[in-house]
């Protein structure tokens, strides 16, 4: 009996010695898995899971210290290894989630900025369109008003003088007999009343239109004299119109003498027609872009 005991003891001691010096492969793997997890991002991203892996590893180490390389030690080591791996996998997932969230927020931010830019541009465009619309309406109203006044002026003038629409504009023709005594350039009293009416009507024309007073004579007498006379008469009419409300910068005067007859100078009637003052209302030059 004693002999057997003696023989068994060294074997047991040997077994125990082996167990304490050589850890099972499972424990070796668990240690390296835990080291990897605790030194990697898992340690900061999933600290609770790393801690759990540490506890599991401690249990396995304790089992190894107490009992050696037993199936239980191997099981505990296996579980510890898996828990360390789990911490790393969970950390990887968490990081992916965080990255996705950050990137989504970035996309959202960019989209908002883009939207704000588009909205701003659209608002500016709308404002421009509204402004243009207003300007167009004002311009249209202004033109309609000007046309109304012009046709009113034309109707008024038609009652007091001969009015014709020509390519050079509206031409108001006043007979020389009505305005001046023969060879004189001061206006007759009756002419003044008539010119007052003309001035009245002209104030209703488009203020942008220019007015030219043109003096004409018949062919009798010297051309130079006639030229001067027609020039002076046109000037007298112009001055009168200016003193009756026509802006001075709108209206000019010219003398043509006998150079532009409208009737035969051989008859008395023709000559009477040629002695005349024409007031030409030129339409405003077309605006750029219209």
């Amino acid at each position, binding site marked *: 009996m004693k002999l057997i005991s003696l023989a068994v003891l060294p074997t047991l001691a040997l077994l125990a010695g082996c167990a304490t010096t050589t850890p099972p492969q499972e424990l070796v793997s668990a240690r390296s898995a835990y080291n990897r997890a605790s030194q990697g991002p898992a340690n900061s991203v999933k600290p609770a899971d790393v801690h759990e892996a540490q506890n599991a590893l401690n249990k396995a180490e304790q089992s190894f210290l107490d009992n050696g390389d037993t*199936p*239980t030690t191997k*099981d*505990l080591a*296996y*579980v510890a290894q*898996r*828990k360390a*791996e*789990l911490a790393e*996998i*969970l950390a*990887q*997932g*968490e990081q*992916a*989630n965080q*990255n*996705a969230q950050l*990137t*989504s927020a*970035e*996309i959202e931010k*960019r*989209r908002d900025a*883009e939207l704000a830019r588009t909205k701003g541009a659209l608002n500016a465009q709308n404002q421009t369109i509204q402004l243009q619309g207003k300007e167009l309406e004002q311009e249209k109203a202004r033109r309609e008003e000007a046309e109304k006044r012009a046709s009113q002026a034309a109707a008024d003038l038609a009652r007091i003088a001969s009015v014709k629409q020509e390519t050079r504009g509206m031409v108001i023709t006043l007979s020389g007999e009505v305005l001046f005594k023969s060879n004189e350039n001061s206006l007759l009293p009756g002419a003044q009343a008539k010119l007052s009416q003309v001035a009245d009507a002209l104030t209703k024309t488009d203020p942008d239109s220019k007015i030219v007073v043109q003096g004409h004579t018949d062919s009798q007498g010297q051309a130079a004299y006639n030229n001067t006379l027609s020039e002076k008469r046109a000037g007298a009419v112009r001055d009168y119109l200016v003193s009756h409300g026509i802006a001075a910068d709108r209206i000019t005067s010219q003398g043509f003498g006998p150079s532009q007859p409208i009737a035969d100078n051989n008859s008395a009637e023709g000559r009477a027609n040629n002695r005349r003052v024409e007031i030409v209302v030129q339409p405003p030059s077309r605006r750029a872009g219209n």
Partner: protein
Amino acid sequence: MNRLILAASAGALLATACASYPKPTDRLISSQASLRGAEEAGAPAHPQASLHMKLAQEEVNKAKALIDDGENERADYMLMRAKADADIALALARTNKSLAVQQQVQEKAANSP
């Protein structure tokens, strides 16, 4: 007589020691639940997760056999392995999805103005 009592009590002690380790029913249920969770999370579609599911399933089967043999304690530890593997499978499946979403969002960001 004394010897008989000693032997009997020693035998009884041994018997209670064996019988005292309860059947690991709770851990069996929890391991199987984790396995189902992993399956529902799409672990079978992911090679690494699928491997851990297989390991967990094998470990559950081993544990069941151990329970049948009355080795409740060994079965309990085997079920710890099963649970650990099933948890890994579930985590891999979820992380895989997170990585896919991350990639999708990053591609979207690369294409957004």
